[in-house]
Structure formats: C-alpha cells, structure tokens
C-alpha cells in the first residue's frame, strides 16, 4: 500500500504545481513593440505568389504589396497609390500611367516602369489566379522610367483593372530573376507595401514587420508589426479577442457579434460590401430547365427570415446579381419575394403541381451561414413537395462535382458566395452568367444565352470610356437574368468588422474584402 | 503414541453460489501425529484440497467461508491467529506443495529467485546467503546441476523438476508439517515414483510430518502410516493404512477398493456402485453416502453417523459400522 500512497502524493503534487503555475498569469511586458494581432479562421496564405493569389491571401498581401491605383467605391473614385495620374485615348485602347518616384521594394531595388511591365507580364504569362483581368492587354510599354503604357486589343477600363484586388500587385521581378521563379511560392515576399515579411509558419501564423523605407514614411503611432494567427475555432478566436490577445477577428458568428456589439471594449464596424450570395440553379437538367420552375424556386426562399435570423440584419435582399453600392446596380429591377402561392402556381404551370421531385444542393463545409440557409430552405421546399438533399462537402470537392465531365453527376443547386476581382458588374456577370462552354469558371448554372453574352461583353468594352452606356447594357442583361432565373439572388452582405476599441482609424473598403490597411490604423489606450 | 501435531476439530466450510449455500466440508475430528505420514484420500470434489486450504486459513472468500471449527497446530488455533502471525506460520511452520507445479511457480521469476525470496523472508537472510542456501536446497531435492536449474524459468523445466523445485521451496524454511496436495497428480508414473521416493527420503532425513493428499488410495498406501478417507466433504474412515485398506470398515471404503482395477487382476467384472457423486453444494442429509449405499437404512438419511471405533486408532463414521459382507 505504501507504493500507492507515494504515487497518489506525487500525482497530487504534480497537479497542484500545474494549478499553481496556472494561477500566475503573465502581465504584458512594457517596451514591447506594438503588434496588431489578427485571428484568422484559416491559414490565409494558400499561395504566396502575388501573381497567382486569387483567394484569402489579400488581407496579408495588401499589407506587403501595392497596386497602381486604389478604388474607393463609396465615392466611386480611384485614388493614386504607386501611379500618380493616368489618361486614356478616346478609343479606350491606350492607357498611360505616370509612376511615383522614390519608391523602393523591400529588397532595396527601385520601383520603376520596367518593374511594372515585368511583373504584369509575368502575371499574364503564368495565367494563374486572376490573370484573366489582363486579357484585353496586347502590350505594355515602359518608354520612360516613370511611365507605363498599356496597349489594348479591345477597350476595357484599365484604371479599374490596375486597382483590382487580385492579379494587380506590383512585386519585385528582380528578386525572382535572382532567386528563381519559385521564390515567392516558397514563402517569401517582396513588395512596396508598408510591411514586410518577417516570418511565417504554415497553418499557424504570419508575422509582418514594418518596412523602414516605405515611401509614405513612418510616424509614431503606426503599428510595428502585424501578426496573423490561425485560429480555426471561432469560439477560441472570440475568447482571445475578449482576453485582449488579438485586435481583430476576421470571421465571427453573428451570434457572437451581437454580444460583442454591446461591449464598449470592442468596435463593431458595419459597412456595405460587394459580396453577395447566389444559389445557382442547374439550368440544363429536368425539371430545372424550365424557367417557371426556377422562378418558383426563387419565390420559395424565406428572404426576410434569412436576413433577420441568419444574417442578423447584416445583409439586404439582393436586387439582381450586382450588389447594391456597386455601379451598374439598379434598385428598380425585379425583386423576388417569399411567396409560396406564386411558387405553387408556377410549378403547376410547369407541370409539377405537387412538386414530386428532389434536388441535391451542395454546401461548402464550414460555411455556417450557407448551411443554415440550406436547412431553412429545405423546410420551405418540403411544403412545395420538393425534397432537398443537403450535402456539405469541402469546397474543392463541391467544385469538382460542379465541373464533373459527367453532367449527370453535377449538383442541382450550388450556393455560392461571390465577390468581385475588378470592381465592376463585369466580375459578377462574366464570372457567373455568360456562356462558358469549353471551361466553366463560375457559371455553375450552366446557363447560356447569347443575348446576355452580347450585352455583358458590350458593356465591358464601353466601361472605360462610356460609363453611362455600360451601365445601361448591364441593366438590360440583369433584367433578362432575373426573368430567366438561372440563379436565386439571395442577399448582399455587409462587412462587419470586429476590432478592439483601442484601434482607431479604420475605414472599410468593400472593394478589398477583409483588407484592413493596417498602415492607416493606430492605437489609443490599452488593448 | 506421539502427540498430534495438527488437529482439526468440528471444521465446517460453507460455499455460497447462485444455486445456494451449502456446507461443503464437514470434518468431525482429524489429527495428524508428530512425525508420521498421513494420507488423506478422496475423489475430486470430496473436500480434501479444501481441508488443506482450511488448515492454512486460505479458503478463498468469497465464495467460501469457514463457519466453525478449530485447527490446532503446536498448541495454537490457527483460525484464531491474527493474519500477521498466520503469515509467519505459513511457510515457516507449515509448508504446502500443490498438484500443478507449473501454476504454483511464478512464471516471470527464475526458480532460484523464487526459492531465494522465501528464504530471505523467513530466515532473514541477505540475498547472497539466501541464494547460496537456495542452490543447496535444489541439490537436496536431487536436482542435478542446481546452479543451472536455479537460473531457469519454470517453463523451461519438466514437470518432475518443477515439482522438485516446489518441494525445495516448501523445505526452505524448515517447516514442521508439509502438506502435499496431490503433488504427483499430473505426473507420469515413473516421475511420480521418483517424487514419492524423494518425499519418503526427506521424511526419513528430517523427520518432517507429511500430510499427503491424493485421490488414489494406492498412492498413499505405500508411504503412509495412517489414512483418512473423505466422501463428499465428510470424513468417513480414518485409521492405520493396513487396517483401512483391509476393507472391513466403511461401505464407501469397500466400494472404492472394489472399484479400482489392479494390475494382474483376475476379476472379469468390477464390483460396481451405482449412482453419482453428490452435488457438493447440496449434499444429501445424514450420511452423505447413503443414496449409493447398499446397507442404507432410514437412520442413515436422518442423522449424521457417529464415530465408531473399530480398532486401535481406527474410526469409522457409519450407522452400520462393523457390518461385514
């Protein structure tokens, strides 16, 4: 028995020591650098190459890289960044940008027109990510160190393109020449932005530190470092926020936000966004190839409930595919309502008075809001006699299924969260609704209407020079889409950003989702 | 006549199982004399092993329980001794060897180690001395090359060698009484003969008292001075070997002797006793042999038979004692 007792004593002592250690919480140290800490629910850095990035990397990339211009959608104006000013020929085919001088890359190389040409050419050549935004560009010239000229094959608004959130970063081509084309993808970065990469651990964290030679210079109140922590659990992230360990959580459930909003220690910033949610309807499959059935589906969604209870009013019901606030959006267009009677009539007209068919809907796993929408909709469809089979799957699997060569394999309904690359209706309409026969981008309705195609491409060519005409063409295309209903336009989202109240200076820019532009922020008081 | 070294008085052991509770062992009186070889004989289930366990106060509880009785050994009632005292009696005063030498030895220690440990504990020897003494003991039990054997594990030894090791352990503390519980049960006859010879020799040499437990009367007949017979937990006959094996006493003794075939037997048909051994949990009332006994009378069923003295130191528990064929 002696042995047992000794054991128990040892174990209890061990436990006590642990608890004692637990008792003394460390106080933050004085004199430490002021770090802006972001909790990200996923590893933000899928791709390190700014030419390839077409996803969640931009909040980090925009701290390290800059574009020639930056778009301010609320004022609908472009702000100079690396380019100081620009002009375009009347035919809309030649654009000239004059560059800021004295700008340096993190590696010390100077930023000039050759670098702009090289980095955009490389992006185009790689053809990854959002490289398609340069499709219209025929040739780029760098006649002088501070002048860049874009020659187009057909007119597009290059001013918007160079301000794109994707595929328009200016990175140092010399670094690549010196260290190999894979240099960035091996986890390195070299841009002109205010912060440079200090260290990173895949799946864990990215640490940025300030770039002393940044062209805008440094004052006292800027943050010294940016730490992006990967915290997959939103519960954990919220706790870290409350414990003052982080300044900003990228994504929080609205239930948590509702609570945090009441706490003066936090700043919940709400602003319009260009993100919206579609449910794309497989328009080539029985019975969904009948527009009346698609319209019926559009009438069966409990829009108000979704906005109130799923989105907690941080969203509005969409009017058409182009989100509110973006140019080209027309609030006068047709808007579907939640109307089961109307839905029943349409179904009856199409020959399905009691429903009697079932639909497969894929939902990206981990997307709580989409799952909720699906589950709520399931109940409504049941009332119409339509069975909804919800399948949550990883985004990639969902994506594979949607593009399956065997058309029969594809889903019936695809709930898609969408946001623009270039800030224009083109991103929405070309991405999701023009005919995509040889390869599908986001047209997961498999919708094809030559009339819509003509309108959309026509609008884009006019956009650079004749915004009014472009807007009108976009309006016409949207009207057709609303009537044909290849997708259900569920809601336009609002940006909800939760920050520690000590962080000041935050202004959301919906053209660059989740980008904070930490250089503009400063701290007042304690976290 | 020498004094009894061990004396069991009115010993009753009870077992509890799902089917009920029953007095499994019920011994009126049994004495083992100083320096003798006593043979306790009975079928499996007759309670002979239980007698050995009760003597050592090791009846597994549950399901068993000693409900009454006394076990006198060297002037002390072992059943009333405090556990610590009893621990000193076991091994030091009374040693036991059991039927299966393999399971009696701990498989993960060498046999030398096992002998040594008992020596260290009982004789307060240091490890080195104890080990030397252990090797000597292994030699005493006629194990050739005791050094090598001492370094072996039980499974590396043959059955006969294992039993010798067990005997060595039993002897290691100079016990006065050795209980050999079916010590040769699963051994071949030639090996069995060797062990019996060894025990006889050790007894001559050390004068140790041996309580020999067996299911075959022939085994003990050769080496025991006195024999006791158990049937279904009751002592039926006890007396000098020759007198008991003459077969004039208890009907069970007669039936048993008649049933065992012998080499060179000329009998065409063995004398058969009908029926089956009783359920030890629910033994028949009165004389437990009465359902199978030819001489059974109503009183056999009614009352536990009294002890009837047939001759010098020869008792029979039978209502019809003295009956002859």
């Amino acid at each position: 028995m002696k042995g047992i007792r000794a054991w128990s004593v040892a174990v209890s002592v061990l436990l006590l020591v642990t608890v004692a250690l637990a008792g003394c919480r460390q106080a933050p140290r004085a004199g430490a650098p002021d770090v802006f800490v972001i909790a990200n629910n996923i590893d933000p850095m899928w791709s390190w190459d700014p030419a390839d990035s077409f996803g969640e990397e931009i909040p980090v990339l925009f701290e390290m890289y800059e574009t020639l211009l930056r778009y301010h959608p609320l004022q609908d104006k472009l702000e100079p960044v690396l380019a100081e000013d620009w002009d375009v020929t009347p035919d809309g085919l030649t654009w000239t940008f004059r560059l800021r001088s004295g700008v340096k890359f993190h590696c010390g190389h100077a930023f000039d027109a050759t670098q702009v040409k090289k980095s955009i050419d490389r992006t185009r050549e790689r053809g990854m990510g959002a490289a398609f935004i340069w499709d219209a560009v025929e040739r780029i010239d760098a006649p002088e160190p501070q002048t860049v000229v874009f020659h187009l094959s057909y007119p597009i608004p290059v001013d918007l393109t160079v301000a794109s959130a994707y595929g328009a970063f200016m990175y140092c081509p010399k670094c690549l020449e010196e260290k190999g084309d894979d240099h960035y993808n091996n986890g390195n970065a070299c841009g002109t932005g205010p912060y440079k990469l200090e260290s990173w651990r895949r799946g864990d964290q990215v640490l940025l530190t300030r770039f002393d030679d940044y062209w805008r210079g440094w004052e006292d109140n800027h943050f010294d470092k940016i730490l992006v922590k990967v915290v997959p659990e939103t519960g954990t992230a919220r706790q870290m926020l409350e414990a003052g360990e982080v300044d900003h959580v990228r994504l929080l459930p609205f239930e948590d936000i509702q609570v945090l909003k009441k706490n003066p220690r936090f700043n919940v910033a709400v602003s319009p966004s260009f993100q919206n949610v579609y449910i794309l309807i497989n328009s080539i499959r029985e019975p969904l190839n009948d527009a009346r059935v698609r319209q019926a589906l559009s009438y069966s969604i409990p829009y108000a409930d979704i906005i109130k209870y799923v989105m907690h009013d941080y969203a509005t019901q969409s009017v058409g595919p182009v989100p509110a606030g973006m140019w080209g959006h027309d609030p006068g267009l047709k808007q579907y309502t939640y109307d089961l009677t109307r839905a029943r009539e349409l179904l009856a007209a199409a020959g399905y008075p009691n429903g009697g068919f079932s639909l497969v809907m894929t939902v990206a796993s981990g997307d709580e809001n989409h799952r909720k929408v699906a589950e709520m909709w399931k109940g409504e469809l049941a009332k119409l006699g339509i069975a909804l089979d919800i399948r949550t799957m990883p985004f990639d699997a969902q994506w594979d299924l949607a593009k399956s060569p065997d058309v029969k394999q594809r889903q019936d309904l695809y709930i898609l969260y969408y946001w623009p690359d270039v800030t224009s209706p083109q991103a929405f309409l070309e991405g999701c609704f023009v005919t995509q026969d040889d390869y599908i981008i986001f047209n997961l309705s498999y919708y094809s209407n030559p009339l819509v195609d003509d309108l959309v491409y026509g609008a884009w060519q006019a956009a650079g020079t004749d915004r009014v005409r472009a807007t009108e063409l976009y309006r016409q295309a949207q009207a057709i889409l609303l009537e044909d209903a290849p997708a259900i336009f569920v809601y336009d989202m609002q940006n909800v950003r939760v920050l520690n109240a000590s962080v000041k200076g935050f202004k959301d820019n919906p053209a660059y989702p989740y980008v904070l532009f930490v250089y503009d922020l400063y701290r007042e008081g304690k976290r | 006549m020498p004094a009894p070294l061990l004396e069991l008085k009115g010993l009753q052991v009870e077992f509890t199982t799902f089917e009920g509770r029953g007095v499994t062992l019920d011994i009126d009186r049994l004495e083992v004399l100083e320096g003798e070889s006593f043979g306790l004989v009975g079928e499996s289930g007759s309670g002979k092993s239980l007698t050995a366990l009760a003597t050592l106060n090791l009846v597994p509880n549950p399901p068993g329980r000693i409900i009454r009785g006394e076990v006198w050994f060297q002037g002390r009632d072992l059943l009333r001794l405090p556990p610590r005292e009893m621990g000193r009696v076991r091994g030091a005063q009374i040693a036991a060897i059991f039927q299966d030498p393999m399971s009696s030895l701990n498989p993960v220690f060498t046999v030398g180690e096992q002998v040594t440990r008992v020596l260290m504990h009982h004789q307060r020897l240091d490890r080195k001395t104890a080990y030397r003494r252990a090797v000597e003991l292994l030699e005493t039990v006629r194990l050739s090359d005791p050094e090598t054997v001492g370094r072996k594990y039980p499974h590396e030894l043959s059955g006969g060698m294992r039993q010798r090791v067990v005997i060595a352990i039993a002897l290691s503390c100079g016990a006065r009484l050795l209980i050999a519980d079916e010590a040769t049960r699963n051994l071949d006859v030639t090996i069995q003969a060797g062990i019996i010879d060894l025990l006889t020799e050790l007894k001559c040499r050390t004068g140790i008292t041996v309580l020999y437990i067996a299911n075959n009367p022939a085994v003990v007949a050769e080496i025991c001075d006195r024999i006791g017979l158990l049937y279904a937990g009751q002592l039926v006959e006890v007396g000098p070997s020759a007198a008991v094996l003459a077969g004039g006493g208890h009907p069970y003794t007669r039936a048993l002797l008649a049933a065992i075939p012998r080499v060179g037997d000329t009998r065409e048909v063995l004398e058969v006793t009908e029926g089956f051994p009783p359920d030890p949990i629910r033994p028949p009332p009165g004389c437990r042999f009465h359902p199978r006994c030819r001489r059974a009378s109503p009183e056999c069923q009614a009352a536990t038979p009294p002890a009837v003295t047939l001759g010098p130191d020869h008792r029979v528990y039978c209502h019809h004692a003295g009956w002859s064929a």
Partner: protein
Amino acid sequence: MALPANRPRPAVLEQIRYSGYLITKNSLTTVGFGIVLVLLVIALLAPVFVPHPEHAVLGTTNVAEALRPPSGRYLFGTDELGRDLFSRVIYGTRISLQIGTLAVGLALLIGVPLGLVAGYLGGFVDEVIMRVTDIFLSFPPLLLAIAVAALLGRSLTNAMIAIAIAWWPWYTRLMRGTVISLREKPFVEAARMMGTPATRIMVRHVLVNSLSPVIVQASLDFGSVILTSAALSFLGLGAQPPQPEWGLILSTARNYFLVAPWYSFFPGMAMVITVLAFNLVGDGLREITDPKTRRL
C-alpha cells in the same frame, strides 16, 4: 479454487435465471443494462412523446426561436435554427443505436466468417487472411475510419461503412484465436472423426461456441463505434444536416458553445450516457462469460 465441475447444473430456464443473477449481482452492470433498455424504449417511442418531431425528422426550422436556453417549453433549449433540442437529441438516440447496430453488425458480418475460416482451416488460407488483417490492424481504427470516410464521401452510410472497415479485423483476430483454441477440443475432433462436413463443423460446433467473446467485444465496441461515428460527424465526415445525429449537433454546437452552453451539453450527455451504458454492459458480459474473473 477448483470446485468440481461435475455437479449438475440448472436447466435452460435456470440458465437464464442464472444469467439474470449474474447481471444483477454487479450493480454497475445492472445500471448499464437498465440504461440500454431505457434507450431502446426511448428510441422506439420517440415519436410518441417528443414535442417537435418535425424538428428532428424533417429538420423544420423555427428561426424566430433560435438559441433559447432550456425552459419548460424547450427542455434542452433550442439550436441556432430554433429547433427543439430535446426532440433532436431524443431522435438522435435512434440514429446512434442504428449506427452502432449496423456498423458493428457489418464488421461482424465481415470479420466473424473470415476469422472462423482462417482459424479452422489454418494453413495457407489462414496465412492470407491474417496478413490482410494485419495490414488493416496496423492502422489505428479511428484513423482508418477517417481516411476511408474521407474517400467514400460524406454521408452517414459511408461513415458506417468506414467504421465497419476499420473494425472487422479485430473480430477476425478475436474469432481466429477462439476458433484455434476450440479447433483442438475433443468435441470438434469427434465431429471430424465421424466425418461431419467441414462447413457443418464450423457452424454447428465451432461458431456457436466461439460467439460469446465476440458478443462481449461487440457490446464494448458498440460504445466505441458511437464515439467514432460522432468523431467522424464532428470532422464533417458523417451525418449530413439536418440529421439529428449527436456528433453533428455537437459539431454545429461548437460554434456556439460559449454563447449557448446547453447546446453542446445535452447531446454530449446523451452520448456519454449511451456509451457508458454499453461499456458497463460489455464489462459485465465479459465478467459473466470469462471464467477467469468469475467468482466460482
């Protein structure tokens, strides 16, 4: 202590009573059996006493009542879509028992015959079967289940198949061991001696006598299987919304566990109770069938 085994034992009815006695002898086992019975009743009668069967069966939502704490109206509170958690947790009993039964049943269906054949026939057949079994056994079962479930695609059925694939080799091994020890038993030799066909020996003599350790193991595994399927659902590899599967409910509840602690508490508790009950039953059965721990 070796009591003679030749004492007449009670007849068949007595045997049942005897098992009953052994079950009730150990209070923990009794509790386990009791809970399992109650769970069965709950699973069968769920539609009768549950206030909102539509919340569980159809997944009908009632968003206006989202995340209500437990009250008289909602015994276990509501989830983020306003569904009655009590109804869902109770219906979850059905699913969990179903998963347990089907997954363990499937694993038994694969594992037992293979073990029987390998153990009885021995030789080359045994060699092949056991090598394959060894390979499967080199994966920790949960890992194998995760990998297979990830491959098969996400659904409850696939999760059950994945679990069965991860579990069968254990039964094969267990069965083989038992069969080998039985194969040399005289009654099997006797059957071979009299020319009984091998299949008949395997079924009538070997199989029926080797089932009890398998049954014990299966009842213990029942709990592990429920835990594993919950783990798969938790990782998003099992049940699909709006199925009221406990693991899936917990997985969703994880997003709200600090806002609405009851949300995760009740399904978790239900799972603990269920698994606990099966573990107790399994332990009890083992004690009953294992002569080594039997107190006779």
